[in-house]
């Protein structure tokens, strides 16, 4: 086989195998490049929580926390909904306490989850629903452990907050642009199962085939542009 024919044949056959994935790669890559990552992360959905100076006088002393939560690993005094709270990590898991009274606030009830979500939401929409997820984790919370409160808002792109019932923290924020990104990411890394393994066998093979495909394409370019011949002078 002559070289141009060989280049054409290999490019064609590699194309047959890899072309659909190449379209997936470029379309998903274009989306990821075109929509700014801060928008994807939902930064604009969240109002920065006010961090006022905490009046320490009269609060439960950190030395007493071990009585509330045996096997204390760490504790954090912060403000939630304008009230000082302790977020405690202990042998039995994480928990939330009122820093003034020592009353245990966790696990949060629906009103507590709604109030925290509402206070953090930077846009105008109202809450359309709040559910406590205890099993069947949705794909969009990835590896975060359940239970979690899911609080959905009205508004563009279906904004959704996930609030930990144990700490009152916002652990994830989602909206349709993020969901689209995650869906396209699955195609980009070719982990059609978990959308997380960037080292799977499929993508390792496919990327080298794409490399070979573009290399044979470059080779084929050598034969694809006709040089204009100089008209020969008659002898």
């Amino acid at each position, binding site marked *: 086989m002559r070289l141009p024919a060989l280049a054409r044949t290999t490019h064609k056959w590699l194309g047959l195998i890899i072309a659909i994935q190449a379209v997936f790669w*470029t379309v998903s890559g274009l989306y990821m490049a075109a929509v700014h990552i801060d928008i994807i992360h939902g930064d604009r959905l969240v109002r920065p929580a006010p961090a006022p100076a905490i009046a320490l006088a009269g609060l439960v002393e*950190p*030395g007493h926390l071990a009585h509330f939560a045996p096997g204390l690993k*760490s504790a954090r*005094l*912060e403000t939630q909904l304008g009230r000082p709270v302790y977020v405690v990590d202990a042998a039995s898991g994480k928990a939330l306490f009122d820093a003034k009274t020592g009353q245990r606030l966790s696990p949060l009830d629906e009103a507590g989850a709604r109030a925290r979500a509402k206070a953090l939401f930077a846009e105008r929409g109202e809450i359309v629903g709040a559910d406590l997820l205890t099993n069947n984790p949705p794909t969009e919370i990835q590896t975060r452990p359940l239970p979690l409160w899911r609080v959905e808002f009205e508004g563009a792109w279906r904004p959704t907050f996930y609030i930990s019932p144990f700490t009152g923290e916002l652990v994830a924020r989602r909206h349709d642009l993020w969901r689209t990104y995650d869906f396209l990411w699955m195609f980009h890394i070719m982990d059609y199962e978990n959308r997380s393994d*960037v*080292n799977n066998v499929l993508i390792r093979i496919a990327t*080298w085939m794409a490399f070979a495909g573009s290399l044979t394409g470059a080779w084929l370019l050598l034969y694809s542009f006709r040089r204009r011949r100089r008209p020969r002078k008659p002898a």
Partner: protein
Amino acid sequence: MFLIRTLHKWFGLVLGLQLLIWALSGAVMALIDHHQVSGEHALLPVAQLTSGPAPAPLATVQAAVGAPIVKLELKPLFDRWVYKASTADGVRLIDAETARPFEVDAALARTLATGRYAGAAPVARVDLVEAVTYETRKMARPVWRVAYADDAHTALFVSRATGEVLGAKTDASRLWDIAWMFHIMDYTARESFNHPLIVTVASGVTWLALSGLILLFRSFRSSDVAWLTGPFDRWSGRRARREP
């Protein structure tokens, strides 16, 4: 179809090199184990202290910090309990039992890093990094860089403000980072994949891929697949002859 072939050819000529770079950098990133890239193998989990804290009262902490406190954490730091007090102008570290403020100096950074280092190699050097570097671009600076004399050239990064180990970098991370730079076409900061250059090139390359897919429908003739369809053709040919 002639137009699509011409466009495929010209887009390939102008943008094909970037497609080649994307495929190659993508292949490299797919080959390097992302656990090695993230440096998590080089880090031990944060050790828990066997004894609970006997922390100083809040009034003493407030006096030691001075400025109004907006957040206060009580946590283990290697071999002791500490308070980490956030104020409007930064974080202060206080020994939780003596209520004495302390700084994370080079010697302490070395101790804190080695407490989390999963390897056995000795420390090669300790530097304070204040500028943005490829390794520290996502970390709060200034940060202590504690380098170890191991094969992967592991470096652990200890925050000067909090004493926390912010991450580890190895040769795998550094190689991955170069592939990442070519992949996102941000040749200076290696940070952003949302810039006009990449959007423009990606649009063109999307067309390159799409036109290639369309061309496939015209590029194959029945003779290309004769090895596959041949036996079937012969079989159906025999059948056709047999039937009157």
